[in-house]
Every structure is written in C-alpha cells, then in structure tokens.
C-alpha cells in the first residue's frame, strides 16, 4: 500500500513535469488593498510549490459584489471553482445544495486530510451543517473589537479602556469635556451593534437558535435588551458620545483623524490601523451592559469562508482540494493571521503564532481570539444562519440610519426591520 502510494506520487510528479499546461483553478475573492496582495502571494506560493495546478485569484470587489457576481456567473455556467463568501451569505450558500461542493466531501473524495477538530470550534461552527460537517473552508475570520486612542485617553486622564457600556458613556463624556469631538464610532452596525451585541448579552437575534434550528426562524432583535441599547445609542448620537459614519468600514477615518477616540471594528482592521494612525492605540474587548449580563458571552465571527462551486472537472477539484490543504497549513495560516489580523483558524496556527512570541510583540492582536474563545458558545452566540441576509442587513442598515438621524425611535425602527426581515426570511424559505 505504502509503496503503491509512493509509486503514484512518482508517476504523478513525472506527469506534472511533462505536461506544462497546469490545470487552472479560478478563485474569486474580496480582499482589497494589502490583504489582496497577500492573497496573490499565497496563491503564488502554492503555484510554485507544485506544478500540476495554477490557482488564479481574481478580485471581484467588496463582499457583496463578489458573492453576487459569483451567483450570476453560476446561473450563466461561468462560475469560478472557489469563491470567497462573507459570513452573512452562508445560509444562502448552504441552501443552494445543487450549486456547492461541500468541502468535507471534496477533501475526502480527493484524499486530503481534513479534521474538524483541528479548527477553532467557534469558527467551524458557523460553517458546518447540523451533523457537524464543514461545508466551506474557513479562510478569513474576524470578530469585532474596540480600538481606542491611547493618547487622547491619556490627555483626558483615563487610564484604561472601558469594558462595559456604562463605562463607555462616562469615558466618552470625559473625552468630550477634554475637547475630543466624538466618543466612539462603529463600523458594520448590524454586525457589531445587533448581531454581536445579542450574542454577547445572550439574547436571541432570531428564533430557532438564530436559524441553526431550521428555516422557519423569525427575527427577535427587537427585544428589550437590543431596543434599550439602540435607543441609548441614538441619544449618544445627539450628545456626541457616538457618531455614525457609514454602513461598512467607512467610519475608520474618523478614528484615524482623531475625531473619534474609539472605534468598534473588525479585529482584522489592525494592519490598516497601524498604517493609518500616527498615534498609539490599544485594542480591547467589545463592551457589554453590566446591568444586563454579569459575564458576557463570546462574540461571533465575521469575515468570510471559501466555497467550492459545482460544475468543474475532476482535475480542477483535485487542485482545489490540494490548495485548500495548503491554505490550512499552520505556517500559511499563521503568516496570514499575523499579516492581516484575521483570526488564526486552526489550533496549530494559533499555537505557532504564540510560540513565535508574536502576541507579546504586538499587543492587542490576541484580543479577538481571546474574546471569541473565552466562553463556550450558547444557542445565542454560536452564529447566525439566516437566508437572504445580505438584503436583510441592508434593511437593518436603513432602519438604524433612521434612528441615528432621529426620525424614528429604536422600538419603531427595530420592529419594522423585524417585520420586513421576516418577509424576506419567508421568501427564502419558500424559494428553497
């Protein structure tokens, strides 16, 4: 058996060296900027490590654009073999059984080693089916954290980062008194202020275990805890404690320019933060309301995973499987984690990074990992699995913007978002 394997490897290698035309595997991704260059580097490293396959990364714009253009391409039978889909697209991808090639199946079909236990459970939980099979390959996972401007804090005489929302208020007011024009701003409001907020406070975002339990899920983010929080934020928007600046990460410049002293954003924003700030900043865990929960839950992940789409040749899939194996190698993952600020997705990569002393040298980079793995995920904090969620996020965005501008109350806005969102969930249930 062993010798047979060896023989096939040798034959395989000789074939590879004879045929110059390597099988091309297209990979659509949404990594812009420095991370995009890193993606190209990873692909190149893989291509150079063997001769049979060439992975060709194609940048397709932001997450939404990448996902929607892959779907459009699938309809037209021009889909890439691998596409990077952000976490909110997960349910839509899972439901498209005829379109995806589950990663666990792919890996076993082509004899690549693949064990769920090698990966951080809070990461794979998001991408597994009810039987615990991993359907898509985790690639870049992040979790929201709080960035704070140490220099502005020092000027205002504040020694440590706020850990609770109660402290957020007092700290911000202190900052405002000391001439800072805004306490904090947030990116990805639905993800951070509602989805993660609910997880952290152990309240449901949607029924049926946030959708893990079945497609008949309904939204529940208009509960008293969430409403109170959003209402408070709308008051803060008026007083300057909070300042809204866009749906995605458009608010980061407010932090860079020191207009806002704190910024809630993806842990993966670390590299950009380093590049764009001229001041000393710290990273700390997402605050929680002391009055609502004693010990906060873990946060949930954001970011994206890699889905394999059907409709390609066996040879291509062989290449995909070998590329995915390459991607989860501890050294590749650790390098990616340290470069980008995304979470290490395997225990090995986490261990390797720790062993290299990276976290001591770069204070704050471990915050996200710790926060996400701090507690055992509950039904409310293992993630979301909701159909049509891309569109629903926009509905939530629209409603929250209404609150920030003072047009509606938090209760009205969240009620209407729940109602509109439920309609889309039903539509999704019907279509699948």
């Amino acid at each position: 058996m062993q010798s047979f394997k060896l023989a096939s490897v040798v034959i395989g290698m000789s074939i590879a060296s004879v045929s110059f035309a390597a099988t091309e595997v297209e990979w659509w991704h949404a990594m812009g900027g420095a991370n995009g260059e890193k993606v190209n580097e990873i692909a190149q490293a893989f291509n150079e490590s063997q001769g049979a396959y060439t992975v060709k990364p194609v940048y397709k714009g932001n997450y939404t654009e990448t996902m929607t253009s892959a779907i459009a391409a699938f309809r037209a039978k021009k889909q890439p073999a691998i596409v990077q889909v952000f976490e909110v697209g997960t349910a839509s991808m899972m439901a498209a059984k005829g379109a995806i090639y589950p990663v666990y199946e792919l890996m076993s079909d082509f004899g690549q080693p693949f064990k769920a236990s090698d990966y951080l459970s809070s990461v794979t939980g998001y991408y597994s089916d009810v039987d615990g099979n991993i359907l898509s390959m985790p690639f870049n996972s992040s979790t929201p954290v709080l960035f704070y401007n140490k220099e502005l804090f020092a000027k205002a005489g504040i020694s440590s980062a706020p850990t609770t929302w109660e402290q957020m208020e007092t700290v911000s007011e202190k900052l405002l008194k000391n001439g800072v024009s805004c306490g904090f701003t947030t990116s990805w409001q639905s993800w951070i202020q509602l989805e993660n907020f609910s997880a952290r406070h152990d309240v449901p975002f949607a029924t049926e275990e946030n959708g893990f339990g079945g497609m008949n899920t309904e939204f529940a983010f208009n509960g008293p805890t969430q409403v109170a929080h959003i209402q408070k934020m709308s008051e803060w928007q008026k007083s300057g404690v909070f300042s809204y600046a866009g749906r995605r990460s458009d608010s980061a410049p407010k932090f860079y320019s020191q207009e806002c002293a704190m910024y809630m954003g993806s842990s993966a924003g670390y590299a950009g933060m380093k590049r764009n700030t001229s001041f000393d900043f710290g990273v700390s865990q997402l605050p929680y309301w002391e009055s609502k929960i004693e010990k906060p839950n873990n946060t949930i992940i954001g970011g994206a995973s890699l889905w394999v789409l059907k409709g390609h040749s066996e040879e291509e899939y062989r290449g995909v499987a070998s590329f995915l194996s390459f991607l989860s190698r501890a050294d590749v993952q650790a390098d990616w984690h340290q470069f980008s600020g995304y979470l290490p997705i395997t225990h090995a990569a986490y261990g390797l990074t720790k062993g290299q002393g990276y976290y001591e040298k770069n204070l704050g980079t471990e915050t996200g990992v710790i926060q996400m793995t701090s507690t055992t995920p509950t039904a409310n904090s293992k993630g979301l699995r909701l159909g049509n969620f891309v569109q629903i996020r926009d509905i939530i965005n629209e409603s929250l913007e209404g609150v920030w501008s003072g047009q509606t109350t938090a209760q009205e806005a969240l009620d209407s978002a729940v109602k509109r969102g439920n309609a889309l969930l039903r539509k999704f249930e019907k279509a699948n």
Partner: protein
Amino acid sequence: MIENRPWLTFVSHLSLLFGIALVALPVWVALVASTHPTSAFGAGHIPLWFGDQALQNWGSVLFDNAGSGVDVPVWYMMLNSLIMALGITIGKILISLLSAYAIVYFRFPFRHLCFWVIFITLMLPVEVRIVPTYEVVANLNMLNSYAGLTLPLIASATATFLFRQCFMSIPGELVEAARIDGAGPIRFFFDILLPLSRTNIAALFVIMFIYGWNQYLWPLIVTTDDAYYTLVMSIKRMLSVDNGDVEWNRVMVTTLLAMLPPIAVVVGMQKLFVKGLVDAEK
C-alpha cells in the same frame, strides 16, 4: 449688444468666471489629491495644495498597476476603453446607416413594425434589464470578450433615428435624378447618401464615442478578467474595498485619466460635438 452697460458686462464676465470655477472645482481638488501619498487621506482632510508625490503616483498608476484590486496599468485599460468605445461607435453608425436607409428609401411589408422594434430600444437602459441581458451574453459565451463589451450596447436607436431624419431632409429630386442616371440602391448609397451625410456621421461619432467610453455598469458586470477591464469601471473596483483602505490618490489619478480622452474629444472637436448634440436630440 444693444447698449453699453459696463456694470452689466462686468457682472456677465464675473458670473461666467464664477461658473467656470464652480464647474472646475472638483477637478482641481482631484488634481491636488492625486499628488499626495495615500496616508494623507486616512488621517484627516484632503490637502488643498499640491504634494510631492505627483510623479510617483501618476507614473505608477499609468505604467505599473492602477491600484488595489486592479492589477493592470491605466494605459492598458485605456486601450480596452478605446476598443470598446470605437467598437460601439462604429458598430452603431454602421448598422444604423443601413437600417435608416432601408426605412427611408424602401417600402416593404412590416416597415412600421421594424421601425417600432428598433425604436423601443431607444429608452430602456441596460441597467433595467441587467440580469437577463447578462445571462444572454453568458449563453453566447461572450463574457470577458470585446464582443460582449460592445455588441449589447450597439442596440440603441438614437443613431438610426438621427440618420432617418438626415435622409428625409435630402430632396427627393436627387434620388429621382440618380435613378434616371441608372444608379441602383447600392451605388446611390455610396455615391450620394454617404457623402451627403459626412458631417452627420462625424458629429454622431463624437457623441457616440463619449457614450461608449463612459460605459460603466455593463463592463463592470461582464468582465472578470482584468485583461478586459475598462478605465471607467475600474474606479468601482478601486473604491469598493471592504478589507483595506481606499487609495484616494490613485483613485483620483485614474479618475482624471479616465476623463481626459472624452474631454479632449469634446474640446478638440467642439464644432462637431455641438452639431452632434443638437442633431441627436432634434
């Protein structure tokens, strides 16, 4: 003017200069922004005076690569834009000349129907029927190809309509005379109609070139291979960055370079451009 009112003349000049300044303001800011390093934008306000990175920025955008998300240089995308713009322009003019000729100079069954079918395409923009059009083009295997970039946009009736007007204004006696001379429809087309429509064709060329060059959504959707990226659509690629920061300096260089060719056409061929506009909308 009728009478000399110096203050009124002064106000006129002042208004015009103010108007020009207002119209040029965004370009000025873009020009300034294009001379700074990326870091100048992250941390605060856009500088109001030129920085010292002009050569680096312009040079690398033009010749290395446009910016994050676009791995080809601007000169290369300019070439793509040019091919697309010329393809659309020439295609439109050719098929419209032929169809207008048929509609004006021939009487045949279903003439009205044909005219209406063509005319319907005049107004519904590609944005509105984007999903099915994409699928059609994909079925025809034309994604990531120059044919896919140009052909669907040739289907518009503006040019047909314009040539129809132009042909109708040619006196009937000319046609009569040509027929007496024994000229067939083909000879008439080449010897009389084409020469008479020369300026119209040129004017339309200018307008259609601008239209073609400025296409945005369609190229954005049908191209996934940066070998076919056009300049105008590449802006979107550079702007929609989820995982990183927008490189405003490079975006501005690319924006300015994308504006340059059509502006040069408008300014350089102003007479034809004005004629084209007036004709196309008559």
